[in-house]
């Protein structure tokens, strides 16, 4: 019953006027608009392009100054912060900053290990050996599949594990590496 009523509305709607005269003649305004000389679209396009170039230029300049400032401070940064800034690159090679930090931590590790009992030292060396073997294996796998996200995650986990061991030994307290760092 309600459908019949609803259909009646549709039928009735067909009788509604489709042509309605405007209360005033709209043509003069239309004629004025189409007679008006067209503004060139190139002016705003050039203005927009100039604005984009200016924006990109300003952004690049700010980024350059900021990065340059950071590079200038790099030698004074503590080893744990070098981890944070290290990028392994597309081939997963460790950057020189990371290598230096690693060497420094390894040197600290040797000093710390010398203070520990031989058994504890052996345990730590054994753990580090396992982690480094894992890093080596994962890196080799990544050579075959450079874009494998799972392997990237595993490599990161291995580096984190190594960092964790080194931190426990050398007293580093930060672990701030992320997957994007690889």
């Amino acid at each position, binding site marked *: 019953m*309600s459908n019949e*009523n*609803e*259909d*009646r*509305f*549709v*039928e*009735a*709607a*067909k*009788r*509604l*006027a*489709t*042509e*309605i*005269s*405007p*209360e*005033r003649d*709209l*043509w003069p*305004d*239309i*004629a004025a*608009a*189409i*007679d008006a000389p067209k503004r060139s679209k190139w002016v705003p396009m050039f203005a927009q392009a100039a604005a984009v170039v200016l924006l990109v230029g300003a952004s690049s300049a700010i980024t350059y100054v900021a990065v340059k400032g950071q590079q200038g401070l790099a030698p004074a940064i503590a080893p744990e912060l070098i981890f944070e800034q290290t990028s392994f690159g597309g081939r997963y090679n460790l950057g020189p900053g990371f290598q230096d930090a690693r060497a420094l931590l390894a040197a600290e590790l040797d000093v710390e290990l010398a203070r520990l009992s031989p058994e504890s030292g052996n345990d730590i060396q054994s753990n580090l050996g396992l982690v480094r073997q894992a890093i080596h294996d994962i890196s080799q796998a990544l050579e075959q599949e450079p874009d494998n996200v799972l392997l990237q995650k595993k490599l990161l986990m291995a580096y984190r594990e190594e960092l964790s061991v080194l931190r426990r030994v050398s007293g580093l307290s930060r672990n701030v590496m992320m997957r994007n760092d690889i």
Partner: protein
Amino acid sequence: MALLTANCSDYSQMMVTTTEDTVADEAAWITQAQRADRKAFEALYRLHSDKVYGLCLRMTGNVSEAEDCTQDAFIQAWNKMGKFRGDSAFATWLHRIAVNTVLGRMRKSKREQDRIQSVAELSPSPLSTTDTGELRDLSEAIERLPAGARHAFVLHAVYGYSHNETGDMLGIAAGTSKAQLHRARRLLMQQLKQQGFEA
């Protein structure tokens, strides 16, 4: 075609012709308007303005908005005349532009929509003098429909476009057009059943 050189005031007289003449004239006016003949375009305006204005008025429910939309639609049509290939009727092509104009203006800002709505609520229905009797009740009920349902109902039920055409004009799927029509019918029935509407 000598009429094309007549004064603008003569164009209204040109409409008093047979359907065949009008179709032939329209085709000629389209060709000439595509060559930037403003008088031919005015003839097209005179031929189609009432239908375009009617569509805009039923979609917006507001005289001022309908006038602006009609003018914008014809200005856009003038600018796009070169793109009209005759794949559809010129009236359908114009309606598509008009619907896009209405939708574009409605999307402009929520504040503007609210203004249009408040003006529409305060003013008597602009269609009250166009439709009479029970059709006036229906017409006013259509104006009170939510925009989506109103647009689908006007295009499909009033102007007779298919759901595919309606969906195409409104940028929605044909199924959505059907759903909006169903919603419109239900809302109309709720509004009108208390008024003893008899179609």
